[in-house]
């Protein structure tokens, strides 16, 4: 099955050239060297701009080429599978600009669109040294006059704070703070009075060493009042909606890293069926399925994105972290003890990827976002509330997506998750005998989990530790629902047994039941053989490790 998105990806990858060729700008060897020198990948980012990646961050309505988040996620994955550092460094501009797409004035958004297309770097400045993920505790504040704001305070651990020409800053516009006490300001550093701000030195990090992770200190920096993004007091709401988009894209960043890890594992393993490789491949396909469905849900089920984005951000990076650890353990020292003659090294991606469960809302923050919605999720499940049209659009790959309407994003999903709430009915469709025990086990898990979720009555302040475990299980269930629906809605579009018999789905469900503690997670020999063979075939043919067909510009 080859989608229109795959054609876009193929074209983009051709533009980047063979990553194994050290003469290419965006080669594995080059990324390794840059990491060792802790140097920003300037040339590579320019190359990506040249191929139009920055234009893909700008909504089509503003003249850009962000037609769908499915496309954007596919491109982000493609960059991340070559190098996560580069992906984090470049995609930061989308993070910085998205708040303006969501809430900015039309002329402000149009102006920023021109900047982004011209290659300006935009940064989102949220976190502070002492407050991390606790946005309500942020201290950077403004004082205001008739037509100006003055910003004071420090933002720290900010991607592209130093390199960015523009910084979107969350600041306290009401001294007392509170949910309506913060605003977003789009600050043009080039127009600030000299001395009214200072970029902080890049912080030395464990991974993504070449990225610009720094900070910025404002010293009564004066900006015009029209720097405000949306109405005063809406900063937190806008940021939380913006994060729903970026957290969904984080699935693609992790997925790309999983591609990279698995490719190195294939290259360093003996031939023949291999349970470790097959298991990792099945996990990768799960990560792909859930990321794909969530990215399409931006268009198809925007009101539920508070659930989908949190589930993806908590689930995919954790899954990929384990995938990397499993490969390192099972395939032994060869992967971590790379010799300098090898351009590509596993230990770098291992270090790089740890950032994924930390930034853009760490895993606990995202699980907490789900806990806060348990009530609606449990209720929606009991009532089997499903937005059928939205669900079909999110999961039917051949259907064109409606334009993304970000005005429909909501901080809480009133009706829960159509994906999870349609699971019992979807499982009932898996009547084939080789699915039956898996479907039954999963249905039982879903029932059990929702019962426990309904029984939990957490207060906002006192979230019991076990609530996080329930939320973790919910993310696994969400992934399972994504896989099941993706298969049901697309199985006839491909005539390979992999799709027709649902072999990949069987592997996915076995792995996910393992994560729910309802099975060993070990794949039977027939699936190990089939998955290993397909994996090796995709590797040899220079294809993306994927449920779908996608040819890469890559020598084996």
């Amino acid at each position: 099955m080859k989608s229109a998105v795959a054609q876009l990806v193929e074209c983009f990858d051709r533009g980047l050239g063979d990553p194994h060729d050290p003469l290419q700008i965006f080669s594995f060897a080059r990324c390794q060297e840059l990491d060792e020198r802790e140097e920003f990948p300037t040339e590579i980012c320019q190359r990506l701009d040249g191929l139009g990646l920055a234009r893909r961050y700008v909504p089509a309505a503003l003249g850009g080429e962000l037609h769908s988040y499915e496309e954007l996620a596919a491109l982000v994955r493609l960059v991340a599978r070559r190098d996560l550092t580069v992906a984090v460094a470049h995609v930061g501009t989308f993070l910085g600009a998205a708040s303006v797409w969501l809430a900015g004035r039309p002329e402000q958004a149009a102006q920023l669109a021109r900047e982004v297309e011209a290659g300006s770097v935009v940064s989102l400045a949220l976190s502070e040294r002492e407050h991390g993920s606790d946005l309500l505790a942020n201290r950077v504040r403004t004082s205001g006059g008739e037509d100006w704001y003055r910003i004071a305070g420090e933002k720290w651990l900010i991607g592209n704070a130093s390199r960015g020409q523009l910084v979107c800053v969350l600041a306290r516009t009401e001294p007392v703070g509170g949910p309506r006490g913060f605003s977003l300001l789009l600050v043009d550093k080039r127009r600030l009075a000299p001395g009214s701000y200072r970029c902080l030195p890049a912080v030395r990090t464990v991974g993504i060493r070449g990225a610009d992770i720094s900070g910025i200190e404002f010293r009564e920096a004066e900006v015009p009042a029209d720097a405000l993004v949306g109405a005063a007091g809406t900063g937190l709401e806008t940021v939380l909606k913006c994060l729903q988009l970026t957290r969904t894209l984080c699935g693609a960043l992790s997925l790309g890293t999983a591609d990279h890890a698995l490719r190195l594992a294939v290259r360093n393993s003996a031939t023949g069926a291999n349970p470790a490789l097959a298991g990792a491949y099945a996990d990768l396909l799960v990560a792909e399925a859930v990321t794909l469905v969530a990215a399409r849900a931006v268009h198809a089920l925007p009101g539920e994105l508070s659930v989908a984005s949190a589930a993806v951000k908590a689930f995919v990076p954790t899954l990929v972290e384990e995938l990397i650890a499993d490969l390192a353990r099972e395939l032994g020292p060869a992967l971590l003890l790379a010799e300098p003659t090898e351009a590509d090294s596993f230990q770098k991606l291992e270090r790089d990827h740890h950032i994924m469960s930390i930034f853009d809302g760490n895993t606990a923050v995202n699980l907490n976002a789900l806990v806060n919605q348990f009530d609606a999720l449990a209720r929606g499940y009991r009532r089997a509330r499903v937005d059928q049209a939205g669900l079909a659009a999110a999961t039917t790959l051949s259907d064109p997506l409606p334009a993304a309407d970000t005005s429909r994003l909501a901080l809480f999903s009133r009706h829960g998750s159509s994906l999870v709430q349609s699971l019992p009915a979807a499982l009932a469709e898996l009547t084939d005998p080789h699915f039956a025990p898996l479907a039954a086990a999963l249905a039982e898990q879903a029932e059990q989990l929702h019962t426990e979720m309904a029984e939990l009555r957490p207060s906002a302040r006192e979230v019991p530790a076990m609530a996080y475990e329930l939320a973790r299980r919910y993310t696994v269930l969400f992934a399972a629902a994504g896989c099941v629906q993706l298969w049901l809605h697309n199985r006839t579009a491909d005539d390979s047994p992999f799709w027709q018999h649902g072999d990949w789905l069987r592997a996915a469900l076995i792995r996910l039941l393992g994560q729910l503690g309802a099975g060993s997670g070990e794949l039977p020999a027939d699936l190990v053989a089939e998955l290993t063979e397909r994996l090796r075939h995709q590797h040899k043919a220079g294809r993306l490790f994927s449920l779908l067909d996608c040819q890469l510009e890559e020598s084996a």
Partner: protein
Amino acid sequence: MTATLSRTADRLGDPADAANPLGFAALVAADERGELPAVQLGFTPELVRALGGRDLGLVLGRALAPALSGLPRPAGYAFLREEPLRARPVDGALLLDGQVHATGPGALLLTVELAGTARYLLLPAELRPPAGPFYRTPGLRGCRPHRLAFTGHRVPADALLPGPADPARAARLLAGATLGALDTQLRTTLRFAEQRELYGRPVTALPSARAALAEAFTDLLIADCCLARGTAATVEQLVPVLVREAGHRLALLLGARSYLREGEHAIFQKHQRDLTTLAALRGPLHQPGARLAEQAAQACRLVQQQSADPFRSAPHWLAAALHRLAGLGDPTARAPHPHDLPPNDSPAARAERDQLLLDELRRRQRPATSPS
């Protein structure tokens, strides 16, 4: 026991002292330079664990070899690379064949197989074969791990040390050093969690943070019991898993601070990278199953029954340990037996256990004494 340990820790000086070459700041700086800290110490077996709390590179690159062999001078240590390293006598000398992963510069302690017996051999620096290649490891940067290949490599017969090699003892010492590292990670995270405010109160007031600290501490306690009373298999296979999973849990709690190579928590990530590298040097590890979990549970029970220490002889930590071990390994074959578990595992009972474990952790944090 406690007195001896605190004396050995005293010899390493205050970890928070920026002027101490064995303080965290100096150790992180040395690691950034890819160097081992230059210190003059007698490396006894008792010191290895405390030293692991400072720098695993120093353990591997200098301390483990003298602690194992009783040699008077520091030397590096070598891990086998799949096959054993073979020695055969040839007219008054020995010929070595095989490959190892070596750590540390200078003299190197090798474990060789000679006439069917494992022996230690001290390879003098000047008799090393050409080193290389050096690995790109995420950690242990100061001891620059590398491959060393021997092909009919000639060494004098007196390089051989008297007595048999003791791989089980090496594994125990090494496991102890990793527990030292985990202990430091736990202290670092606890300090962070007590000082940091989240949602208007200290992080340690959040039930999930308390549970994470209690779980990591439980893993450290179980690992301690494995070392004290457990089988060799628990030391070699279960302890590394406990150390890895506890470190992972703590990293999530420490958040961005677990990712910074600078600042007051930087020692955390150094230990994390060193532990990852050490695991790679030791070779593949398999997920422990129910049998190992039961052996560890038995070790925990013995420690609890026989300890005079008020905390260790109390039932709470044992309950936490048994629950933790029940969740390890194959989830479909839960061990230990359910009837062995304390009946009350309600959220309230767990919260109470977490509190008691946290109290003990804080008690240990206060004076600068060594762990356990």
